[in-house]
């Protein structure tokens, strides 16, 4: 399982802090996220992609929007707003 952590607007919209999904890539994880949280669709994830201004930090470290990023058991996808800084 992969854990997706939500902060800020994403957390407010989804009404939850974490979601567990079965995913082998970032693209898979985002499809599962959109399905689990329709409130995020269009604004934060859009058809399995990240909406403009959104990225992820894989395990909280490097930041990417590359949908092909492979994910494995225990990985954590931290959803980050690109204007995280102000």
């Amino acid at each position: 399982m992969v854990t997706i952590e939500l902060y800020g607007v994403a957390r407010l919209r989804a009404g939850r802090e974490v979601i567990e999904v079965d995913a082998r890539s970032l693209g898979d994880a985002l499809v599962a996220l959109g399905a689990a949280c329709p409130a995020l669709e269009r604004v934060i994830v859009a058809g399995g992609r990240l909406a403009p201004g959104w990225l992820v930090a894989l395990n909280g470290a490097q930041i990417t929007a590359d949908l092909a990023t492979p994910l494995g058991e225990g990985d954590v996808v931290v959803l980050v707003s690109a204007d995280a800084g102000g």
Partner: protein
Amino acid sequence: MGRGGYFERYLRVDLGRPSAEHVPLDETTRRAVVGGVGLGALLLTRETPPGFDPLGPEAALVLAFGPLVGTPLTTSAKLAFVAKSPLTGRISDGLSSSSFAIAGKRAGLDAIVLVGEAAEPSIVLVDEEGAEVVPCPELWGRDFTISEASERLGKAYPEHRFAVIGVAGERLVRYAGIANEGRHAGRGGLGAVLGAKRVKAIGVRGSRPVPLADAEATLGIAKDLARRSLGPATEKYRALGTVANLSTFNRLAALPTRNFQASTFEEARKIEGEALHETRAQGRGSCKSCTIGCEHFFEVRPGQRPVKMEYENLFALGPLCGIGDPEVVLRASSACDELGIDTISAGGTIAFAMECAERGLFPAGPLAEEARDLRFGAGERMLVLLEDIARRRTPLGRLLAEGSRRAAEIVGGEAPSFAPHVKGMEIPGYEPRALQTMALGFAVGTRGADHNRSGAYEADFSGKVNRFEASEESAAHAVAAEDRAAVMDALILCKFLRRAMEDFFGESAEMLRAVTGLPFEAEELVRVGGRITLVRRLFNEREGWTPAEDTLPARFFEEKLPGGAAKGAGIDREGFARSIKAYHARRGLDERGFVPAEVARDMASLIRGKNR
């Protein structure tokens, strides 16, 4: 009178004489720097002699408006306060919003320049005719809060809008700010510059409409921009405000904690924006003429006046000082606002003192005695210390009123290696080791460590660079971030609007054409951004800048981050030096970072101006 956006003059007020004169502002100047921080930097340079004391009579304080203030464009009700900082000895500019900016512009002015020193504590009243310096013994030295002083001024002069200093400005605290209608030009000690001039407040009154070259086009752009300002790009600001940063930064291990000894805070959950909203939200506000409304108010205690909170206040008075009690942080933020001190510098300087106290570095005697119970997490102690600093009323308060750099020099030993500043300006809430393109932006910043004049953190959050390494690529991002910020702050528009604009320079040029009638183009505005940075650098060079200042405190090179997602991250000294060199090359500076002589020669007539 030209076509629009400008009144083509500024008001120079000599407080010593006292006298006021209107000075023409030529089109070359307006085209070259647009307004706001660019105009402020130019006028500051023109109106002061080299090597002046920022707290002396030769110092100038410039209030510079942009061409857009007073137009229907959203978030345009802003002005820039510009002076030589008593904290850094380098240029400092602070932006502030509200009807003060609109009234000042509508006095028929593109800027106001205060020079000299009033003979006695006074207020300055500006209108379309000129200015008057009015003694105010009833306001000075009375220990009024900013709210109390503003209320008294509002009652006495109901037609004026006021910018006011607090007790900290009167006592020349080196990071005292200037407040107007709940907003603050906080950074760099501009309030002390005003205090040294014995000016408690500046009142402005004006009713001249700002001319629009093409009113219809301006209205069309304003409507479109207002619509876009309510889209997803600004949802964060409307829903949560900047306090939303805290939880994300903590997760990314980019949250400065305990004077930058760590970058995650174990009590973050108690003070994160999401929690504050759930338990304490008390409504939202906005600056004048703003459709976004990013101001969020929170309850301190039932029945008490709610307090406005932003990320920078929250991080500086919370995790940076090891404090996780939301009530204490809210009270501290409110105290800073009412005393008139910059929250980032206050938090940074107190966090530095907490570390000195824990390490036993204060020299035996009154300082060590007073710092006995100063520890990270000591919230009530911090609240008392804020008052001591603002009033300079105890030995430790007086020491810390000087800022962390000077305090570290006095404490001595290893203290300077962990005083959290660049050029004397305390570092805002972005851990440099976890966001290394931002670290570069901090190091080269003309006003010191600064997230508002360099939004280089955007590169760190973009996935385009490795956030744990400052590279030559970082240099390109740092230059671009500075240029864009300089133009936003010259126009002046709120930075929170930036993501609602797809083509920032193109759209800005279009706005300027509609408002001013001048044929601004996008490429020209990119050059304006670079030029403003060079004007600031030339001012700093004139005032003694050396390349050694463009760096970070030793801690960031010598200590690695201890935990969280950035565990083990540190800044490589050689790599960082290479990225600084790359920045110099991109910025068109010489190897050491000076403005090349031929560039300075080309800019000489612009810098000198025609009016002196």
